[in-house]
């Protein structure tokens, strides 16, 4: 696989996990955009610009609802709230992730043992 392909692959990795992280963050409590970006940035090193499109897409797919709330500083903020569909989707993603991660781990372990 070329370098470019690997980078793309990494981006795909991140993209898949990013959804899960964002969903989980919002599930804990309603958050606004910048807050979420900071939250996600703690976990994954991600381009900050990409969070907003993600939020947008997931809102369009009805995993989130949005509402405006006044803030003490600056203009009102748009808060994201997870929906039932969003929770279901999150659970599915978590399951997938665990399975995927487990398989990859097992595979890598086996390979390591085989080499030794």
């Amino acid at each position, binding site marked *: 696989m070329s370098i470019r392909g690997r980078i793309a692959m990494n981006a795909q990795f991140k993209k898949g996990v990013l959804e899960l992280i964002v969903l989980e963050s919002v599930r804990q409590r309603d958050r606004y*955009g*910048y807050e979420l*970006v900071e939250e996600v940035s703690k976990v994954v090193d991600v*381009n*900050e*610009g*990409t969070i*907003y*499109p*993600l939020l*947008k*897409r997931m809102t*369009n797919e009805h995993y989130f609802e949005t509402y405006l709330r006044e803030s003490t*500083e*600056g*203009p009102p*903020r*748009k808060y994201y709230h997870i929906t039932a569909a969003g929770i279901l989707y999150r659970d599915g993603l978590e399951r997938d992730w665990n399975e995927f991660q487990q398989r990859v781990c097992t595979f890598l372990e086996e390979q390591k043992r085989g080499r030794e």
Partner: protein
Amino acid sequence: MNKAEFLQRLRQKLSVLDDRELEDILNEYEQHIDMKAAGAMTEEEAIADFGDMDELAAQILEAYHVRADFAENEKKAARDGQNEDALQRVYVKVKRALTGGWKEFVSALKCGGRFLEEKGDACADAIFRFLKGKKEVHAASSEEEVSGVQQESGQAAEEACGVKARGTEAAEEKSVFLFFGRIVSGCGHAAGSCVSFCWKAAVRCVKLCWALAVWCVKYGWKAAVWAAKICWNLFWVCSGIVIGLFSCMCLFGLGLLAVMLVLGYPLAGITIGMLGLTLCMCSVTIGCFTLLLRGKKKDALSCAGEKKNAALSCTGEEKNAALSCAEGESAQTKEKAAKEKTAKEGEVVHA
């Protein structure tokens, strides 16, 4: 790149989205930048964190399932159109203007037509009502008459005429009643006849115009025929005169030859030949003059032959003579034309 610039560029790239969504997204990014700028970062740094502008825009558009290169392609196409199809655009513009103009023209025509129709309807209505009113008057008058007649028999009719009750009393009143009734009915009749007269007059006018037009056409045809006749006659008169003069000369020659023959010269053959020629010429002259007024039913072959002869032997003096003759002829034909005209007019008036 500062915030305003960034937002402006992002707006351009996302122009495919509808305004509400666009504002929503831009708002979010603006807030994000503001918050970062409120911390330890500058606007420029915050914006740099977003990474490549095109990638960002593509990701946003992806959230809407829109092809990221859509706006770009659109712009490119527009640019190409500007460069390459300027002529076509001019053509399209002209076409649009023309069709627009035509449409306006048509709609104006329609408007005018509708206006005329309305007005015409109104006019027709007014005339109809007017005529109807006249008729009613007429009808009313006849009714009155009838009621007057009825009252003679002493019957009290049910119609709502206060005058009627009085009518039962005396014959005088009846006669007065009748008198007025007659006057009214006379008025009605007069109006009716006026209208009918007007109508008839109009019809007659139209007919007269039509006849006049027909007559004009006919007259034009006649004029052409006359012109042809004049030409024909002129030609035959000319040739007749020419040939006649020639035959006179022949006669003169024949006389000379005869005198010489009598004196003893051996000219018998030539004299006989001259005699034949003279006779021939005379007959041709007569033939020419017989062709004069009978129109064009002569055979074309002999005509052609004669024409050639005439053309060959025509001289200036003879032409003058011919012209004077022709004038006489044309005067005659003109007189005839005038007569015919008056006759036609008479016919038309009769019609």
